[in-house]
């Protein structure tokens, strides 16, 4: 039987800044089951971090209900059932990596062996180094190791790879996958579509404090797979090419800028094949629709 580890119902959080009320989270319903890997995807300011803060008990919701493994957030944290890698979690710069691990381990009843956790987080050989001498990626791996010391059932990662280089990202996600394979539930916030696609089984998209889409990675990918195909045509052939592009199934919009035709479509291959050849297109560019475009589409769909 699957158990619910996260239960959020009509969750709202308002901030009062100088008389203006900002709704950072505006009615979020979310259910996460044990063993899931969920990406919380959204642009900055979508309410991801505020939602995570409430799940961890750092801030109380203005209204709505919230439970973590059936307990209040603070109780779940104290019991070590949930832990997190925070975007804003600071480290003591003048403490060594090994000392930081030792300190945090000392707050738990039965922490896993420090050496083992260091290995799992990719910190081997760094124990004697001071935190201030560690790169951003190394510090992030240390935060990851600190989260593992809780031996948590639910691991929350808030923008875990921001500021990391490509290699660092890859190593980080490999470690995360290994932890998920141990049966941990993982919820991570990101604004990279690619990360959500690559590492999550389920994507929850947030915009303006609300969930605008929630589904398997495949379902979400289909919502956001508009691609932009753009190519140059001679003025004589431009109109005909545009008409042909408009007639194709899967085309969402066609634009003409100078001598360029810009087609937004779900099937970029077909557009490229069928339009470029007959009308002598050149200088082809194909790009994925930006995440922002996808959000705009999604929020418009929801509102209409």
């Amino acid at each position, binding site marked *: 039987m699957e158990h619910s580890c996260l239960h959020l119902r009509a969750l709202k959080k308002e901030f009062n800044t100088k008389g203006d009320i900002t709704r950072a989270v505006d009615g979020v319903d979310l259910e996460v089951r044990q063993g899931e890997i969920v990406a919380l995807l959204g642009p900055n300011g979508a309410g991801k971090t505020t939602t995570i803060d409430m799940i*961890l008990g750092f801030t109380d919701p203005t209204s709505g209900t919230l439970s973590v493994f059936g307990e209040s957030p603070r109780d779940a944290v104290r019991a070590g059932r949930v832990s997190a890698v925070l975007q*804003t979690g*600071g480290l003591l710069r003048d403490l060594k990596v090994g*000392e930081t691990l030792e300190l*945090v*381990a000392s*707050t*738990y009843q039965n922490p896993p062996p420090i050496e083992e956790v260091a290995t799992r987080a990719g910190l081997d050989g760094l124990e004697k180094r001071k935190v201030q001498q560690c790169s951003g990626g190394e510090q992030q791996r240390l935060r990851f190791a*600190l989260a593992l010391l809780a031996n948590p059932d639910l691991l929350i990662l808030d923008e875990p790879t921001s500021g990391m280089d490509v290699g660092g990202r890859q190593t980080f996600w490999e470690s995360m996958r290994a932890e998920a394979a141990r049966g941990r539930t993982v919820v991570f916030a990101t604004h990279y579509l690619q990360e959500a696609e690559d590492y999550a089984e389920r994507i929850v998209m947030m915009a303006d404090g609300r969930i605008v889409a929630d589904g398997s990675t495949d379902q979400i990918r289909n919502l956001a797979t508009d691609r932009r195909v753009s190519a140059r045509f001679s003025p004589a052939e431009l109109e005909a090419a545009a008409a042909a592009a408009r007639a194709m199934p899967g085309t969402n919009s066609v634009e003409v800028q100078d001598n360029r035709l810009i087609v937004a479509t779900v099937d970029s291959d077909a557009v490229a094949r069928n339009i470029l050849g007959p009308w002598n297109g050149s200088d082809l560019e194909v790009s994925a629709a930006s995440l922002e475009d996808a959000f705009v589409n999604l929020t418009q769909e929801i509102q209409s």
Partner: protein
Amino acid sequence: MNTTFYRLELRRLVRDYTNMFFTAGLPAFLYLIFGAGPEYGSDPIREGNVSMWIMIAMAAYGAVTATTGIGGSVAVERMQGWTRQLGLTPMSDRDYVTVKAAVAATIAAVPILLIYSLGYLTGAKAPLSVWLISGAIVLVGAVSFALYGLNFGLAFRSEAAVSAAGGSLVVLSFLGNIFIPLSGWQLAVAKFTPLYGYVSLARRALTGGGTLDVETGGLIDVPLWQPLTNAVVWTTVFAVAALFLVKRSRTRQ
């Protein structure tokens, strides 16, 4: 208490040589120059002497420097997000405060032990009870200055502010009758400054209630309620300010 946390905090502080120099080295040096060296050091004060009077003052200066720094570091750790990181662990606020208080008392004991040892070796004289009572008051009273440092950190939200708090202790020490014995209108003003009550109470075992008058070499009588009121009022002010500032920083998050 979490002894691992305590031990690691201490190790961190001891590794910071600059900080340890200002906490223990500088006041010890000041004692040697002004307390042990000059001839007036052996002038008697009741059953003790002037070296003893200066020794207690320098130990107090070192102790408040230590606790102010640690109080300030709590604010800095909050700003840097370390408190949030600890918020992910089962450690309660009370555990955290207990460890910090134990660390502050331990670090404050360093200048006291060092300067009292130097005093013992260089001619500070008083009955044993005076050594023990004054040392205990210096240690316990220094705790309220942890709040002083905390307030600076919370109010100005920078590491520089915490250093400034440490620096301000030099001024407060002059005003508080610590570095040089004040008399006349200067003493009247001193009675309202935060370090005065603390150091006067610490020296009371030696002086029996008076304060040193440089002009005559005798003691000016000061009733007990004056330093006592000073210490209680300032500790209350620091505590109320800290409560207010902690509350403010919570709502900002």
